[in-house]
């Protein structure tokens, strides 16, 4: 019974100690128990064992890393990989504090970087803006007689006298028109105030090749809305939109009864108001691909 209790006490020692001296310790206990019989002798024996354990168990656990890391070093001779010990001291309090502070700094830096990357929109997300559902529905409600497409987009090198207009007569049956505006990053203004390009797309009611006043008003209205909403410089966008509305009120657009002519006229009006030669109203009878121009 006593030996079992001592064996249990021995289990509190680190494994390396038990492996090396467990049998010897049990033998020593047996020797003492045999030689020190009687109540007081047994009491003194257990007192010695308990006080010794109270001191030596923590000490052995404190020094156990040295014993643990010695084993692989001894295995070097057989050619197997092993870790070599360069120091057996436990880290000092200063080293632990320094390690903790460095860990906190690294963790903080990583979290800041991750949040920064998360806040940055990806290129794909920047190029594709959500299109209002009502625009799609209005497009689907549009007349289907003459397909026409009008777009405000960035052209390569447009000038006020050369509005970029494209008429594709091959697709006469298209029922959809679309208005697109694009603010390019190539503009110095754009680079200064908003380095990333903003593309906006809005679906328009169908605009036939021969534009009636209602369709003309719808195209202008959509262009105005897009300019106000998506043009990188809100003030210039609003000024340009107001100018387009003023031209419409004055009846300046009435002469443009063809899609291409209306596109050229609106392009000139936008450039005149904004002094941004990249703005262009593009007309096409063929449906433009869905999504913003790239």
């Amino acid at each position, binding site marked *: 019974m006593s030996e079992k209790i001592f064996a249990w006490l*021995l289990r509190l*020692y680190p494994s390396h*100690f038990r492996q*090396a*001296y467990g049998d*010897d*310790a049990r*033998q*020593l*206990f047996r*020797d*003492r128990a045999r030689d020190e019989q009687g109540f007081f002798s047994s009491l*003194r024996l257990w007192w*010695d*064992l308990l*006080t*010794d*354990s109270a*001191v*030596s*168990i923590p*000490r*052995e656990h404190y*020094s156990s890393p*040295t014993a643990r890391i010695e084993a692989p070093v001894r295995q070097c001779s057989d050619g197997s990989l092993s870790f070599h010990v360069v*120091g*057996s*001291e436990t880290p000092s309090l200063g080293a632990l504090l320094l390690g903790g502070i460095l860990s906190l700094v690294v963790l903080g830096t990583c979290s800041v970087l991750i949040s920064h990357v998360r806040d940055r929109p990806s290129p794909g997300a920047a190029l594709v803006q959500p299109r209002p559902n009502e625009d799609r529905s209005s497009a689907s409600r549009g007349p289907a007689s003459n397909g026409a497409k009008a777009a405000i987009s960035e052209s390569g090198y447009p000038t006020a006298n050369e509005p970029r207009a494209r008429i594709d007569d091959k697709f006469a049956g298209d029922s959809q028109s679309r208005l697109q505006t694009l603010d390019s990053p190539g503009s110095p203004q754009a680079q200064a105030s908003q380095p990333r390009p903003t593309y906006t797309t809005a679906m328009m009611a169908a605009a036939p090749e021969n534009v009636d006043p209602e369709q003309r008003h719808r195209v202008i209205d959509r262009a105005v809305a897009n300019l106000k909403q998506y043009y990188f410089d809100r003030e210039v966008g609003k000024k340009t939109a107001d100018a387009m509305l003023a031209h419409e009120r004055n009846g300046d657009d009435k002469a443009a009864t063809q899609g291409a002519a209306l596109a050229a006229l609106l392009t000139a009006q936008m450039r005149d108001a904004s002094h941004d030669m990249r703005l262009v109203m593009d007309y096409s009878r063929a449906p433009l691909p869905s999504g913003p121009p790239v």
Partner: protein
Amino acid sequence: MPKRKLDPLPSAAFQILLSLADEDRHGYGIMRQVADQTDGRMRLGPGTLYSSIQSLLEEKFIDEVDLGQDMKLGQERRRYYRLTSAGRRLARAEADRLADLLRVARVKKIFRGDYV
């Protein structure tokens, strides 16, 4: 720089070295000899005894010898320990250090008249 467990030399380790000065002994024999040479004031428990022995073995102040069966204590195989020359020098140096301390204590008249 690894921490040296035997610098300064613990009292238990010094007593173990002294117990092995005249004879090779196993663990229980060392314990009994230490108890005898300290008039029973120091009774090494298994934890202190074998951790001190381990430290002394690592520093090569003692060697392990297998003398086989102990005829007095039965037929169990025991590990005996022997003092090395380095261990003897260490014990002598520690004894000299303690002798110096004793000399200082005498000069300072720490002792009662009986010891002076």
